[in-house]
């Protein structure tokens, strides 16, 4: 896929390199090629990636038909339509690769029918995609098959038990520079589980919250008073639950696992009483109490296909509903979607594991969730919950260049991911890997079916006016 032909690409890069354009002020400026060559030995070259030839769905509502995206050193620096004409650039001469002071890759997706670019998906949680455990900087398996399959499924970031990590896969050629282990883990722990099952656990959680709230009031009073009396001692945190304190200070999310409406409305009430936004996993009967959850600013992580009949003893509405995600969303609850199985299922039943994240979203849309909220449920919302919303989840200037190129609507059941890019590196190409290359291969693939040649179909070039309808034989003789 590395080519260096498109003229405007030169222009794009030149723009990024140009000091005269403030939009790219952040880019290091290499005015002098000789100087750049000198530096080459010491510092790694800048890496540029250009994506073109497809519709860019930025993930925040904008769609750029046949748009272009430029990334530098793994970050997005420009998205648009322009050829970025830069005065003074020599368009008539291709700069040979060895004369360039930078690395350049061009991902031309025009070979993908109905090609679309989306932000890489964010799995709120998954299992086995990174091939390790604990500190992923030490344990990530960059040759892991499941990581490849995760990237093939369009997932570029995943939440793990206590951190958020990228799917950094080893691809020959991309790692002429050092493998970026430090770039694997991009977020720490953002969610702290609050037990909310038994009467005792609920009482205990509320008491801890009350204690933390009381401490915060005392602390704020001290902040005022200490200005008058510098000797005044800071109030003691002894006996105050540090997790709940972090929750009320907005440093961490309180995560509840709850499905029944009574439990859910209880969570909404403590959240409103103490003023924090609860994250609720499960949330099966959320639709029944969606207005309360919406008022409390709750965020839900759910599986739309969850099924449970309502409790027979319950007079009110209850049980699972395919409309759950849609109703929650319409009441202002941010919804993240996760399939029933968090791992890669090799058992042969397709459509319900982490590889089929968009299929799961499809069921929420069946229940009435709008398409954009569906995309958000596997991009921006989980990114926000994992504390990495400033880096991943949408395609915007300044964010990480984690993207996928699909052969159609991401949420359609037939759509496959054709390319996956993480931190500006192409780490998955459907036609280069074993697993799915044979399924509807791209035209440029070796696996693409040969177009049968039928001489009768070839239009006959008329040689002259006289030849007329009988020219067929004459053509044969000429050949």
């Amino acid at each position, binding site marked *: 896929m590395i080519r260096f032909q498109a003229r405007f690409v030169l222009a794009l890069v030149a723009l990024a390199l140009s000091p005269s354009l403030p939009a790219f002020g952040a880019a290091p400026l290499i005015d002098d090629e000789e100087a750049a060559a000198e530096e080459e030995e010491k510092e790694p070259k800048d890496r540029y990636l250009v994506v073109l030839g497809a519709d860019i769905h930025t993930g925040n509502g904008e769609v750029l038909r046949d748009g272009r995206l430029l990334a530098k050193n793994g970050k997005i620096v420009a998205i648009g339509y322009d050829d970025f004409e830069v005065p003074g650039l020599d368009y008539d001469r291709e700069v040979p690769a060895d004369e360039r002071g930078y690395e350049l890759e061009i991902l031309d997706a025009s070979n993908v029918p109905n090609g679309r670019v989306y932000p890489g998906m964010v799995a709120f949680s998954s299992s086995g995609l990174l091939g390790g455990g604990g500190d992923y900087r030490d344990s990530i398996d960059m040759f892991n098959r499941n990581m490849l399959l995760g990237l093939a499924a369009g997932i570029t970031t995943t939440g793990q038990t206590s951190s958020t990590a990228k799917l950094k896969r080893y691809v020959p050629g991309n790692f002429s520079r050092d493998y970026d282990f430090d770039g694997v883990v991009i977020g720490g722990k953002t969610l702290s589980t609050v037990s909310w099952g038994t009467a005792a656990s609920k009482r205990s959680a509320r008491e801890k919250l009350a204690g933390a709230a009381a401490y915060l009031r005392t602390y704020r009073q001290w902040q005022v008073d200490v200005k008058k009396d510098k000797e005044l001692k800071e109030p003691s945190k002894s006996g105050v639950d540090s997790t709940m304190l972090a929750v009320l200070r907005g440093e961490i999310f309180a995560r509840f696992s709850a499905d029944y409406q009574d439990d859910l409305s209880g969570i909404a009430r403590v959240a409103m009483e103490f003023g924090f936004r609860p994250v609720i996993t499960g949330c099966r009967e959320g*639709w029944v109490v969606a207005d309360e959850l919406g008022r409390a600013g709750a965020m839900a992580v759910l599986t739309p296909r969850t*099924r449970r*009949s309502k409790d027979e003893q319950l007079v009110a*509405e209850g*049980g*699972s*509903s*395919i*409309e759950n995600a849609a*109703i929650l969303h319409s009441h202002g609850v941010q919804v993240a979607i996760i399939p029933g199985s968090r791992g890669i299922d*090799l*058992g*042969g*039943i*397709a*459509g319900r594991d982490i590889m089929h994240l968009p*299929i799961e979203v*499809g*069921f929420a*849309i*069946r*229940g009435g969730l709008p398409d954009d909220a569906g995309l958000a449920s596997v991009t921006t919302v989980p990114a926000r919950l994992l504390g990495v919303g400033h880096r991943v989840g949408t395609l915007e200037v300044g964010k990480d260049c984690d993207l996928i190129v699909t052969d159609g609507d991401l*949420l*359609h*059941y*037939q759509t*496959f991911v054709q390319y996956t890019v993480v931190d500006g590196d192409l780490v998955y190409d459907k036609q280069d890997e*074993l*697993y*799915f*290359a*044979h*399924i*509807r291969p791209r035209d440029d693939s070796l696996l693409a079916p040969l177009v049968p040649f039928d001489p009768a179909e070839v239009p006959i070039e008329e040689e002259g006016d006289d030849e007329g309808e009988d020219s067929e034989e004459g053509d044969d003789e000429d050949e």
Partner: protein
Amino acid sequence: MRRPARSALALLFCAWALPASAQETAQVLYAQKALICGAEGDETINGAALVFRDGRIEAVGTRGEVEVPEGAVEHDLGDRWIMPGMVDLHSHIAGSGLNDTVFQCNPGLRASANVIPHNDRMKLGMLAGVTTILFIPGSGSNMGGQGVLLKTGPGGYEDALVRFPGSLKIAQGDNPKRWGYGMQRTLMNHHIRVTLRKGQAYARRWEAYERGEGERPERHLHLDIFRELEAKRTQISTHTQYYQVVLASLNILSGEFGFDAYIDHGSFDSWPLSKRAEELGVAAILGPREVLWPRVNTYPKDGRVEGSAWGFQKEGHPRIGFNTDAPVVPQEELPLQSAMGVRYGFDNTHFAAVRGVTIVPAEVAGIDHRIGSLSEGKDADIVVVTGDPSDPRSAVEMVWVEGELAADVRGERGADREGVRQW
């Protein structure tokens, strides 16, 4: 047994109360698209009108060409699509008593005794557009017993019954090994053969007797099903998977004994046998494990993740359908099974995936005179859907079963209807 007993009573009542020849009022549906699922070249009609009355479809065509009876109730469905109710030939959710593995072969056991009509799981299936299922015993023994073809709609057993016996359930492969210690494939195939031989001989003795040759045989409930099979009034539905096992299914059931049999639960790598199956007239009903991941001990496939339907289609097999094995895959996910077939390579031109859950299984089970397409004279099992039925995003909004409106969940909650959609 086509008209349910309750309707028969109602008809009697009508005959008493009203002048003779009373007919139900006709109903007509106008839809943006009708997936007819008829013969090739007759798959869809855009701008469709469909008339049904007395539980049967009377006419279907474009809006202009269909003659609407006077006084017909009209339903303008706007941009919705209509399609025939879907058919699942591998389902275990119509009742209890799944696996009475008394003997290694139990051809006399009847799933019909265990039916709980329109139970919650059938209802959920119906809400997804699945209106006919083959309820079969489990695969704990080599012959689990006789299945029953049922409608999922409301009513009692007689209302739901489409055909009994719906099939003889035979199971090969790994599950029936659990019947006893030391059970392996050779022994299982031996037992299947022995039972088939006994059964076929029994059926032929009866045939001879009915022709006036020989004495009246002693009735044997264990083997009665073989009279139905020998007369081609029912089929063998085979739980089979993997190349070798499917090969045994094809060669024994169809090749050796000549019964009408179909691959049911056709999981994993059976597709290289496509030509053999086609030669024997054996259809491929695939699921729930439609995708084969690369693993050792299979034929070399260069790491490909292969869809079963992709393989059968590639080899030119003409009859490919999908099943769920509900509750292994929930009943309501039958259309998703077809979608996954497409995802993993099955060419969906002319809505082949929809045919695979409607007319193909109906033909295979020999009930296509009543079920499987929106054709004149067939049961009015009609599903209203918001778009491509295989797409999980498409919602089923209305279902008629034999002309009776069994579900209507159109519109916004609160405004036009009470409660939420379960599915």
